[in-house]
């Protein structure tokens, strides 16, 4: 049987499939359906130094080929996550990627400093789509200079590998990827949701803003991965519109070393285990012994 194990950021994961941040709660919620340890790693909901209440409802909007969410970074805070939920992942012996954010450079840095190196903490995934309040609300991830400065600062306070999760809403994602790499990022996650608006024609409401996700993101993500992987030597975790194992294979071929599955889980809560099984069957059928045969 094909081996799905993949080396990533100095560790070996049993397979290259994870959830996308914010699409699998705090991890415990999926337990009644399937064991979360089936995944290569669990990615936390975006965490911050202090808890965030998030946006008032409604927070999700359906589009014809996807959905827009404006959860507003609702989370219990980094400290509560470690106290309440980390024991669950220790019991499961499942590697965890801590997705985190801040509204200032200091908040990112303090958050990264708080997280002490641990055998199960695979990496810190910095969500760079967050608005920088001091810079008038423009997101950190939109300028190579601000990405470079932020990643450099985060790297200086942690020994845990740092992944930069990039927003696709930029003129040139490759220049952002290069800035993250030059600042010392150990990996990239490509791509975050696409900023979008939902127009409520019933109430003539044009103020609903959020992140678009779903299958239509796949070709956008594939291009970002392909373009960045040609210029940047660090591993790329691909995310955006993956619905099935066929999509995953496309991501690996485009240059991703691992993948994250998000919205697909909302449509089918078994999407991730099905993808893992599908990948294995595909490799067996093609005669690939290792996932490395299709990566890159």
């Amino acid at each position, binding site marked *: 049987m094909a081996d799905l194990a993949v080396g990533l950021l100095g560790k070996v994961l049993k397979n290259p499939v994870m959830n996308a941040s914010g*699409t699998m709660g705090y991890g415990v919620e999926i337990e*009644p359906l399937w064991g979360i340890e089936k995944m290569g790693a669990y990615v936390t*909901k975006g965490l911050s130094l202090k808890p965030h209440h998030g946006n008032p*409802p409604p927070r*999700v909007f*359906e589009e014809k080929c996807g959905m827009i969410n404006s959860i507003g970074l609702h989370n219990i805070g980094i400290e509560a996550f470690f106290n309440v939920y980390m024991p669950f992942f220790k019991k499961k012996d499942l590697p965890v990627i801590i997705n985190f954010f801040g509204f200032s450079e200091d908040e990112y840095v303090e958050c990264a400093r708080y997280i002490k190196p641990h055998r199960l903490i695979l990496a810190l995934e910095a969500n760079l789509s967050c608005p920088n309040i001091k810079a008038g609300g423009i997101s950190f991830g939109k300028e190579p200079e601000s990405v470079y400065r932020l990643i450099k600062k985060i790297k200086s306070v942690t020994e845990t590998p740092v992944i930069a999760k990039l927003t696709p809403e930029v003129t040139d994602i490759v220049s952002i990827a290069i800035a993250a790499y030059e600042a010392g990022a150990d990996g990239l996650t490509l791509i975050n949701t696409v900023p979008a608006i939902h127009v409520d024609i019933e109430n003539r409401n044009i103020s609903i803003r959020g992140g678009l996700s779903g299958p239509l993101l796949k070709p956008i993500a594939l291009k970002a991965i392909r373009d960045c992987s040609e210029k940047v030597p660090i591993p790329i975790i691909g995310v955006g519109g993956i619905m099935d194992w066929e999509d995953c294979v496309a991501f690996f071929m485009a240059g991703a070393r691992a993948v994250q599955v998000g919205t697909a889980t*909302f449509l089918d809560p078994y999407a991730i285990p099905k993808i893992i099984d599908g990948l294995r069957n595909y490799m067996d059928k093609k005669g690939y012994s290792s996932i490395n045969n299709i990566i890159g």
Partner: protein
Amino acid sequence: MNDFEAEVIRNEQIIKDFFIIEFSLSKPIEAFEPGQFVMIKIPDQRVFLRRPFSIYDLHGDSLSILYKIKGEGTRLLSKAWKGVKTQILGPLGRGFNINIPDIFKPVVIAGGIGIAGVSLLIKKLKNIPDIFYGCTEEMELRLIDHIKSKPVFFATMDGSYGFKGDVITLFERHFQGYNSPIYVFACGPLAMYKSLKEKIPESIHCEVLLEERMACGLGLCFGCVKKTIDEKEPYKRVCKEGPVFDIWQILL
């Protein structure tokens, strides 16, 4: 909880815009609580996300949903023919507390399609509840045909049957007459809950079933929240901490 393969057995219009759809599930559902819900994959490619529906009736592998056409999802569901196959995830969320002490007289208040959320509760309560049902017109009374054997107080907005006005005003008229303590269960629109909250003292136990747009139904996405009085974490997930909430805990 499971994600069941389901086949449409019947999908009947009861009255204009109101339907009962019955599914045969691949496996029986053993344990569930009245007030819990399921996420149904609408068998039409035009609908992206699943839709949440209260469990209306459930016997082993036979699941029924009472629904009203409100948007594209329910409109397309109403076109699902006998034999159509789909997926149903459930039972989900936290249901009503049916094990209330005997000293309480149960009172069930439902508004319009809200009857879908409390129908099973009425069946499962140990003591026969007083039922207050309000709707816009007499035609909708057909939705409670099956529970007419139990005491029901009716209100119609147009006065075509029973009390003329809203169901909370009707309930208020009876409220002072209760000699023993009551325990209220309600399912209906937000305006009904707001009015109910104003009319009863905080000493009354009252559980209400909420609805909200959902993506996953499992507590994964934090998309379906409702604001509560909890200052530490005000927004609670309707799909996980609910859909049944203590009326005194939520902000309406």
